[in-house]
């Protein structure tokens, strides 16, 4: 349910008589417009989660690493050289 995917804001413009901030969001190289009405402080460069044309959340980079930290915590990453390897990389 509620298919939503994270993308990076490439540009922002005002539409609908200047009332609405609309972003061009890049998802792995493809671009789609999304309304920023739910994220007043989202800015160019931010990663946002987009659902049916509306950005509904900013991705928290720090929290994004928690899954990997959690695994490290439970000892399962003990044999991995470096946690960083699994952390989100910067998108081209």
């Amino acid at each position, binding site marked *: 349910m509620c298919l939503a995917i994270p993308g990076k804001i490439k540009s922002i413009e005002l539409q609908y008589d200047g009332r609405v901030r609309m972003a061009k969001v890049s998802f792995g190289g493809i671009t789609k417009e999304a309304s920023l*009405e739910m994220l007043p402080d989202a800015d160019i460069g931010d990663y946002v989660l987009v659902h*049916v044309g509306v950005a509904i959340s900013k991705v928290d980079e720090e929290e994004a690493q928690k899954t990997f930290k959690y695994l490290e915590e439970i000892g399962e990453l003990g044999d991995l050289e470096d946690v960083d390897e699994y952390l989100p990389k910067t998108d081209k």
Partner: protein
Amino acid sequence: MKYMSEYRDPELAKKILEEIKRTVSRPWSIMEVCGGQTHSLVKNGIIEMLPDKVTMIHGPGCPVCVTPLNLIDKAIYLALEKGVILCSFGDMLRVPGSQKNLLEAKAEGGDVRILYSPLEAVKIAEDNPDKEVVFFAVGFETTAPANALSVIHAYRRGVNNYSILASHVLVPPAMKAVIDDEESKIDGFLAAGHVCTIMGNSEYYPISAAYKVPIVVTGFEPLDVLQGILMVIRQLEQSKSEVENQYARIVREEGNPEAQKVINEVFEIRNQMWRGIGEIPDSGYGVREKYAQFDATLKYNVTIEEAPENPLCISGQIMKGIKKPFECTQFGKTCKPTNPLGAPMVSSEGACAAYYHFSGLVEA
């Protein structure tokens, strides 16, 4: 894609699975509330990878599946008899109404359009001033803000030929309804990450406390789901019943206040029919009076007789986790994705369809 691909790492998945195996000591039934999670489980073959002691129960979290039959009939009626441009999300089109589905209505010449976003529908209405445009606004809390926004856009811009046929369902009341059923055997929940993105986690504390169930707000990638399962099992094994957030990269404790504002502006809470389950009090959103002109149900005042659901379909029990799809006598026989008897066989997020497609149980 960043923030997706890294949560699909096979090595890490294996490690979490091993930790799950190590942790689990007795049988647990965990409901993933959201159809997106069901999809992830079956598409990635996770169910078979889990230890036998862990049973996943597929919850009611597929809005397409729980949209009332009658409302689908109404949408079809508007498209075929009233000649409106009926816009909808794609997966709604194959859901059977009492006679046919929207795809068939489209094939019969109805102007049924698949859209990515409800905001597009308002544009279509503006571009077609001498046509009526209706958006079939289904969804959980995640989708409600976008649907509400379409109404606000239309309101602001005076687009009077636009309205929504709304069917919004709310997750927490459904979770209660499911766990309240005496046959229910749910030990813990993976809560729907994207619903919480909007609403936050606060609604789950009372549930977790009242029913003594662990609730882990969980994402949709394989690592997310696996980690969510592990977190639930850890609590269960330690007899805890807390609310945890596996999906903190996306979900804030308070949710998205702007989105909540938009929902409140346009919608109010009311009782809601859930297909296959029945009416659940305070489990849906209706359009507020201020926006009544955008409410297609009022605008067209269509009365369509309530058609009975197929009596052989046990979709209610499926969605409550009381039965598995293959325990339905019709599953894979008279009921298939090409000829669904009930809604869970329709959307690929529906529990029956998901089982049918991706599990090793049936022949196509």
